[in-house]
């Protein structure tokens, strides 16, 4: 019997590994293919400048998508992230501009702005979470509602126009987006940190396990002494925090916020999460995949800027096709299933 078990074990390992690995490397493979296509279209694709741009750009969606991974893993959804980013950016700018008189245009003001952003992110996330759990309203409706609310608030604050950061503060704040450390721009470092923290949190802590359990079966989670409402609320808070981080590195890029800031980020973030292999219905989340998903999405946009072979109008078509094909390739365990 013992021998049986041992041989069984190795046998299953051989059988399982490839399919498991394929699902894991699927997104990586898709990204690789995209990069090859990019290189063939224009060798400048792999120039250091372009790769840096690409990574930096992925940071926004990537950071938000890390948060979304938690929400989705625990069986929720958050449609409000794009608007939330716009609203946080708006309030940050108002606060920093307002603080110029008393605090000057130095680091202190910028830190104040960042602090407020974090507080707002946590607060906004908490509102989403509390309405979902305590209010027992579907996450879809709650976040659709707050999406409209945050978006219109930023329009209101900006009086329909654009809120712009004081020019001098911009000077202080600019390096956060544009400067590099060890060859990598700061946003990329933030992205890396958020990704690592997210990965540890999801895969190496009790909290992450709870998220997965809740997404997998809420009743079982409840019976397993998990405070379901609290964990779910926390996932939204994490999402809010991630949005705040993304906003903190976004504001110095364009120095402004308006009603059109962050439009459709929610869809991009969710798409990144799902391209990465997380299951939309919850119960299974992969931070690593999410990161790759965000990179894939950014790369698609980047590649389309590389060529004028296709009518600009068809960008959306290409984007849609690539997303579908990327996910299709990755999901095709059936191939292995057949050959086995």
């Amino acid at each position: 019997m013992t021998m049986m078990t041992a041989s069984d074990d190795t046998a299953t390992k051989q059988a399982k590994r490839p399919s498991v690995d394929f699902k894991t490397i699927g997104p990586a493979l898709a990204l690789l293919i995209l990069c090859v296509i990019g290189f063939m279209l224009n060798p400048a694709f792999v120039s250091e400048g372009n790769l840096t741009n690409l990574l930096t750009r992925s940071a926004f969606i990537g950071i938000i998508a890390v948060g979304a991974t938690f929400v989705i893993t625990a069986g929720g959804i958050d449609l409000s992230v794009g608007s939330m980013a716009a609203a946080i950016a708006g309030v940050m700018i108002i606060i920093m501009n307002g603080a110029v008189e008393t605090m000057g245009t130095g680091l202190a003001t910028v830190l104040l702005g960042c602090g407020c952003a974090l507080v707002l992110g946590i607060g906004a996330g908490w509102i989403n979470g509390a309405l979902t759990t305590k209010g027992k309203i579907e996450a879809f409706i709650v976040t659709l509602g707050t999406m409209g609310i945050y978006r219109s608030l930023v329009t209101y604050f900006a009086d329909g126009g654009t809120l712009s950061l004081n020019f001098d503060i911009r000077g202080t704040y600019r390096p956060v987006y544009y400067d590099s450390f060890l060859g990598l721009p700061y946003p990329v470092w933030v992205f890396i940190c958020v990704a690592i923290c997210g990965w540890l949190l999801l895969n190496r802590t009790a909290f992450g396990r709870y998220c997965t359990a809740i997404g997998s079966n809420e009743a079982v989670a409840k019976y397993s002494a998990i405070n379901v409402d609290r964990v779910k609320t926390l996932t939204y808070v994490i999402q809010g925090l991630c949005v705040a981080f993304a906003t903190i590195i976004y504001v110095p890029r364009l120095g402004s916020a308006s009603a059109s800031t962050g439009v459709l980020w929610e869809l991009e973030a969710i798409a990144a999460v799902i391209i990465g292999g997380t299951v939309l219905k919850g119960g299974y989340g992969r931070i690593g995949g999410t990161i790759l998903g965000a990179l894939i999405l950014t790369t698609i946009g980047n590649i389309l800027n590389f060529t004028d072979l296709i009518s600009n109008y068809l960008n959306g078509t290409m984007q849609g096709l690539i997303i579908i094909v990327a996910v299709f390739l990755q999901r095709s365990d059936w191939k292995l299933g057949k050959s086995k």
Partner: protein
Amino acid sequence: MNVEPATPAAIIEAVNISKSFGPVPVLFSVSMDVRPGEVHALIGENGAGKSTLMKILSGFHDPTSGQIRLDGEKTALPANGGAESLGIVLIHQELNLAEQMTVEENVFLGREIRSKGFLDKAAMRAAVQTYLDEIGLDISPTDRISDLTIAQKQMVEIVKAVSRNARILIMDEPTAVLTEEETDVFFRQVEKLKKSGVGIVFVSHKLNEVKTIADRVTILRDGQWIDTRASNDLTPDMMAQMMVGRELSDLYPPMHEADIDAELVLEVDNLVAPGVGPVSFALRKGEILGFSGLIGSGRTAVFEAICGLNPIEGGSIKLFGRDAGPMTVAAARDQGLAYLTKDRKEKGLLLDKQMQPNLTLFALPKFVKNFGLDRKAEEDALNRAIRRFDVRAKDRNITVGKLSGGNQQKLLLAKIMECDPKIVIIDEPTRGIDVGTKQQIYHFIAALAAEGVSVVVISSEMPEIIGICHRVVVMREGHITGVLTGDHINENEIMRYAAGLKREDLQ
């Protein structure tokens, strides 16, 4: 009964069936046939491959080798329940009902009665009502499955199967969640079907039932066919022995008298909760307290309220002498109070996850080291649990949903015990467990009690309650109708309290 002057030809035959999941073999050249008008029981240990064989017989799995013969002809059964059109109906071991839909919708799912293209709801409701009345089930066709108790769900499964005019009715542990009363009602249905010439396959771990209802018995052990015999030639003990391959000693451990002066660990006073009238009782250290009663008598509801799973509407609870108002489940666990659910599929285990995350989920704070999970400790815990509870999985990384039913139950027990509770409430401890393992579990419970852990056993299996409990509380309709001790713990007494024929005023 079984003089069989001329055995009728088998309706369905499995010939030399082997089955592997990937590289893991679970059945080795097993043969079995079912004749019209017979009840053919299939028994074996947990994980022996009974469910797998049943699924192959009804087309849900393809055999890796071997063949299925229907009316003597080699057939490839249509997949996914398509075999129903050939008259082969399977009641799955795992409940197979759409929770959000009503009883009527479930019973007729996939073969709705239509008139002029539209559903004839009235006809279907009437039909379901007839079946429900026949089987004595007190629910309405328009009730949602999610509102039913697990036993009621099982009865709905039976109604669903019975309503399908089967030639072959395959039932995988239909009685596991039923009380004896319900089982009797159910058996009357089986007799009726049998008379009308239906061939019935019956899987059960309750060997007395097998003895009662079966005409022939096939025994599987570790995926191997052991024997097929007329049930008249077998006693339950013989069956048990053939299943496990060794002589079984006493099923129940010797009863140690409880210390009646031991401290009270749990005192419940006039507890009111959803489905529970005011109830009061107390539990002592090292005591095994049985809770008996009919389906829906509120036993589960009492303990779900105590453990923080349901709101409490009144009364007080004392734990180890201290007031413990309404608690969260986590608080209850931290104070040493743990509840093992009877609904392992919906509330007990994450079916799409592997064994290890399931095992440690309940006691997860114990595995936290430096803010992270101690994966080594988790791994060790799994090794320990597999040994201690004899969880038989041929592949450790298998998702729990693919474990055999009994092994799921063992894993669930292991999961709850992982937090080292001082009071453990076990709801239906041996649901779907084979005799050999049952014995282990009973000894395990007795050992726990001997170590000073208090155990509450909620069970619908009367012998089990009688065999291991020091004291028995009987409930009816949300109220406690009697508390039995010593010699009073016998089937007669319990039944009288449970049915409301006798009632004692407590306190």
